[in-house]
């Protein structure tokens, strides 16, 4: 076990984060409404750890990442990064913050400029941010970055379409590394890749973390991958955080019924195991964030809900040391 990171000095603190989107009010005179994408969440990320953020589509996990990056302006709450409140920083001040905070996207193809060679893609941020001013030195740095992510110097001459999906994701990682960030937000970094390549990229992310003391927010829907890479895991449902715990506690002793349902839905590649396994198939579907249910947002699908669940919003409580859950029955 690695030593416990200093909890007193988290790298990132998210306090009461809220993000609402206004939709509708269209030409047909529909009244419009408010999508409660994130509805008041709190968490911290410690230096050097990987916090996994899981949930189904529309739960708000990607929006959370985008708010931290300030690609979305939060509706409410605070984001404190490296001790500095960045919630209301202007564009110019944000530039220095963004060097320290990088992102890796799901689809490397749509996040790389098709008209630029890999070398140009990697050199551009070095130049724009004035990190390496000398042109020859920039070429050296590009070569070094390629090597760090397991690519060859000759890949600098190639264009994105000439690379495979796994190689393109390596370029995406190299571009994030170029800024020498402390925090990297990984938004579904392997879900678009073939299974045989996913493991390569996960191993690479882990190697880089150890080498450069990186901190990751790892946003994903694949619970097996999240268990592998994360130190702690947060589970979101319909804009709320429903559970947050150390990896082992969350997977071995999940306290929220939604977490239990998610875990039981993960298929296991072994027919004998699958035949013995009890599966908790949730009824119904995720309700609309335009009109979330009253009380606990999970209660309409919850197999153990009681009367209180539809009336009262359960707060995120620390049930055991370091293990938080938002459930009246936990």
């Amino acid at each position, binding site marked *: 076990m690695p030593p416990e990171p200093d909890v007193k000095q988290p790298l990132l603190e998210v306090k009461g984060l809220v993000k609402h989107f206004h939709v509708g009010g269209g030409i047909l005179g529909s009244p419009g409404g408010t999508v409660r994408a994130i509805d008041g969440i709190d968490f911290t990320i410690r230096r050097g750890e990987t916090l996994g953020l899981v949930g189904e589509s529309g739960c708000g996990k990607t929006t959370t990442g985008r708010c931290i990056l300030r690609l979305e302006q939060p509706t409410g709450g605070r984001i404190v990064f490296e001790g500095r409140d960045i919630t209301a920083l202007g564009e110019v001040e944000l530039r220095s913050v963004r060097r320290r905070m990088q992102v890796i996207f799901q689809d490397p193809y749509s996040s790389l400029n098709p008209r630029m060679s890999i070398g140009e893609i990697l050199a551009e941020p070095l130049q724009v941010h004035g990190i390496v001013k000398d042109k020859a030195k920039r070429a050296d740095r590009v070569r070094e970055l390629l090597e760090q992510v397991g690519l060859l110097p000759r890949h600098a001459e190639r264009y994105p379409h000439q690379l495979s999906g796994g190689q393109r994701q390596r370029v995406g990682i190299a571009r994030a590394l170029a800024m020498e960030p402390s925090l990297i937000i990984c938004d579904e970094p392997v879900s678009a890749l073939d299974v045989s*390549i996913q493991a390569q990229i996960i191993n690479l992310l882990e190697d880089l973390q150890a080498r450069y003391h990186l901190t990751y927010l790892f946003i994903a829907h694949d619970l097996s991958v999240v268990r592998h890479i994360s130190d702690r895991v947060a589970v979101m449902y319909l804009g709320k955080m429903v559970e947050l715990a150390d990896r082992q506690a969350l997977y071995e002793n999940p306290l929220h019924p939604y977490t239990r349902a998610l875990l039981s839905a993960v298929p296991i590649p*072994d*027919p004998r195991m699958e035949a013995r396994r009890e599966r908790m198939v949730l009824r119904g579907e995720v309700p609309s964030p335009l009109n979330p249910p009253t009380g606990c947002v999970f209660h309409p699908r919850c197999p153990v809900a009681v009367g209180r669940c539809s009336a009262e919003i359960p707060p995120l409580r620390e049930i055991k040391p370091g293990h938080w859950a938002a459930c009246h029955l936990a």
Partner: protein
Amino acid sequence: MVLDCPPLMPTLLEVQELKTTFTTAAGLVRAVDGVSWEVNEGETVALVGESGCGKSVSALSIMRLVAPPTGRIESGRILYKGRDLLALTEPEMQRVRGREIAMVFQEPMTSLNPVLTIGRQLTEGLEIHMHMDPPAARVRAIELLGMVGIPDPERRLAQYPHQFSGGMRQRMMIAMALACNPSLILADEPTTALDVTIQAQILELMQSLSRKLGVAMLIITHNLGVVARYADRVNVMYAGRIIERASAEELYANPRHPYTLGLLRSVPRLDEPRRARLDPIEGQPPDLTRLPQGCSFTPRCAFKVRRCDEQAPELAAAGPGGHVSACWESTRLTKQDAA
């Protein structure tokens, strides 16, 4: 080549030495390069492999939906109930599509017509293929929506696809596939676009309907986990060829091809202790325009011997119950080796 045990049920679909190619700017792509497999009546068979392995093109070839002029079925036979689909005229083939063999696609939104109501999309097929009059088709449409677990089907008939959630749209696709009582459903990544809790619902639904109605299913997927629970037999494809085939139980317990072994080893599993490090399959997926002379997996294989570069191995017996593997070293392979 008779390697499989005699099937318990009669053979419904038999693909023999199918070859499908695409002409691209980079050269000729042998998307499906001489594959043979079959589906027995009422059985669920899986076709597993990664992007570009030829699994979807296999399904499109069966439906004769490979788009000319770039795409071409070069050779082979596709025997459905003893008739070669490749020899049928287009009008004859149209009677097979939907009525005998139906398809369920990955992304229901792109395969549903956005400007037609759910009801119309269901009744259209019933009127054309089953010669039903509109009132009878409507009754059947309501029955179908109920069967796939769509609540309040009468009201839902008047709605449009965009008013359905992803899971509901996939249920709708399954209802459309079942509409004309087909004998076989080809499901191409039917749950890949769905959330994990909805995936479980859809797969349970497909399994129960296939058992209840005796429909055979071909599930095409990249996820070995998905098929473990639902497939009777599994075909693993790599670079246009089937490289291993076995009953699901045998394949997972006793993989006999380095690629299958690699796929099973490379994914983290919730039922196993967390490993310090994952074991990826090294290297890149194959370039289909430039396949090596020998076995296509050789450049990434941890078990390769000299012969692998020279000669591509054919499928050969590797275990009980018709387990076959296309690997020179299949007998040397055990699950412990790779661990």
